[in-house]
């Protein structure tokens, strides 16, 4: 333990949170008879937290604000589901296969897009997400197209098929996935890759002048991030037991993943989970109970307002609120700049960065 060791955070709080998460399926039984809604919400909290962790690696540490992550989720879903339905492969293996495919997709997407700067990168990732969705939609003989894929029904619990009889099992599975993603993200933060990513995101030219190979670093980060999102996609697909392109791969979902991280605190260790814990219940509860208001638009209006208020009043996310009470502001150990990336200076709009020449 020296000054190079990064602190994880308030250990008692983390343990308390962990206990809450583990006890959740039981706790909710104290409040409601039918736990379906709350259990699904719990599943979604874990799902978005895991996805947020994956996004944080490239979007937070690397400040490469990408809006393409739902494509990785979709790849994980489709790879594993297709292998299950066509090749009778267990989704557990399918998950690994999906991660591989997602990694390849990350390389394909990263190669051209990382050459672009700032807003052009963001726009390009919006485009790549749509391309993936449209490809899935179009080659329907292979993917089932718009009608989607439904695996044959199986009664009861089949572990090898990732089919569980009880709702809480899926919740715990996604919880485990979330923990795994959180751990991977923390490991990246503390690793050389994490240091290089943050250097690049602060000043790419200075980083390169020291010898950091920015392209390799970004690609590594995107591949890791994609694999995490893909794993989440597999679990999501097999819980729903129905997948189709528009819900698996969508711009709205990609946006939501990034927003979850930014809401919690971009590039921070606990921002992703905090963002998910706040955003998912707010949106799902207002959606469920707001059906009669405003032709069911209430939830989305709230979401939009949250986005607007977030950007204007709290661009560093919820975690930055704690700094208002911190004893020594500014001495953040994890290099949490926190600020929404301004990208290159506003008036330099060179889309392509040629080897650092500006």
């Amino acid at each position, binding site marked *: 333990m020296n000054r190079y060791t990064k602190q994880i955070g308030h250990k008692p709080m983390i343990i308390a949170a962990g206990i809450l998460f583990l006890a959740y399926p039981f706790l909710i039984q104290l409040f409601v008879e039918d736990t379906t809604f709350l259990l699904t919400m719990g599943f979604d909290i874990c799902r978005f937290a895991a996805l947020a962790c994956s996004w944080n690696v490239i979007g937070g540490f690397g400040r490469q*604000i990408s809006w393409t992550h739902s494509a990785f989720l979709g790849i994980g879903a489709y790879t594993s589901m297709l292998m299950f339905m066509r090749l009778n492969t267990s989704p557990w293996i399918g998950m690994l296969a999906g991660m591989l495919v997602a990694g390849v997709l990350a390389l394909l997407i990263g190669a051209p897009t990382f050459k672009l700067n700032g807003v052009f990168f963001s*726009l390009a990732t919006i*485009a*790549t997400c749509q391309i993936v969705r449209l490809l899935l939609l179009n080659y329907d003989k292979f993917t089932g197209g718009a009608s989607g894929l439904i695996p044959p029904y199986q009664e009861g619990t089949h572990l090898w098929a990732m089919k569980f009889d009880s709702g809480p099992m899926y919740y715990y599975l996604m919880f485990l996935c979330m923990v795994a993603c959180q751990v991977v993200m923390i490991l990246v933060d503390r690793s050389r890759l994490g240091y290089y990513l943050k250097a690049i995101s602060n000043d790419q030219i200075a980083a390169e002048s020291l010898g950091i190979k920015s392209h390799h670093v970004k690609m590594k980060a995107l591949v890791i991030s994609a694999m995490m999102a893909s794993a989440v996609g597999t679990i999501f697909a097999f819980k729903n037991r129905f997948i189709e392109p528009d819900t698996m791969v969508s*711009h709205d979902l990609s946006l939501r993943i990034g927003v979850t991280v930014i809401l919690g605190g971009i590039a921070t260790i606990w921002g992703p989970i905090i963002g998910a814990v706040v955003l998912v219940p707010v949106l799902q509860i207002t959606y469920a109970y707001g059906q009669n208001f405003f032709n069911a*638009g209430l939830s989305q209006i709230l979401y939009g307002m949250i986005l607007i208020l977030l950007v204007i009043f709290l*661009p560093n996310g919820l975690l930055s609120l704690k700094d208002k009470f911190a004893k020594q502001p500014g001495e953040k150990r994890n290099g949490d700049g926190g600020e929404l*990336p301004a990208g290159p200076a506003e*008036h330099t709009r060179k889309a392509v960065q040629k080897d650092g020449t500006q």
Partner: protein
Amino acid sequence: MITAIQTIFNGLLIGGVYALIAVGLTMIFGVLKIVNLAQGEFVMIGMYATFVLFNLFGQSATSYMLLPLVAIIMLALGAVIMIVFIRPVLGKGDTAYILITSGLSFVLQNLAQGFFTANYQFVKSDIKTASLKLGGIYLSLPKVIAFFVAVVLVLLVSLFLKSTDTGRAIRSVSIDRAVSQMLGVNVAKMYIIAFSLGVMFAGISGCLLTPIYSIYPRIGTVFSTTVFAVVVLGGLGNIKGAFFGGLLVGVVENFVGTYYSMNLAPAAVFLLFIVVMLLRPDGLFAKGGARKA
């Protein structure tokens, strides 16, 4: 043979629609460099505004007669949106713009849904199915009208930006805000004017599109990403480029859609988008060297 030419012309006409919407986005994204993901929603509001006015006047006026009224309403709305939502985040970076305009688009879509329900609405138009016959080619009349309005708007805006004091002031603000301020340009006012114009053009587009598209809250999403591609293809801030960019996108989309697959048509456009950003970041129609921003 006729099918190919018809496809090209259909593509040009739909390209005219994109170009029309792109004029507004060029003002906001091309000139002011504000990444506006809500432009499609502004078009949607223009359509609903036309719808409301149409019914207010007892369904007696055509959408074209209502155009000036819609334009004024959208101009005012643009100013309000700029002052309330955009100004607080000016200079805070592209991601801030993306998030706030995304938020705005969700709010606007669902406000529309709240007021009008998600059902398709229509503005009755006598010329909805009318078409001009040119040789063996059929040209949808409402699209032709939209096309010509696009041409007129492009020329007017081009002239405005090049030859009027306000226009030049707006351009100088987009190139360098700090220096413009030092030179005495009222930067805040320029932003409001340019943004409001961009919203107004979106509203005008919406009005002109009512004979062509049905009106529903999410109609904006049909155009959003495509129109971004158009503006980038044309070169940021290059109004004439945006026009030709629109035509190109329309033709590509229509060709791929007709001969290959409807689903892949937008994908082809997005691919073109990425390729152009990589190879010609200043746009396909950039004038040599001078305009680097």
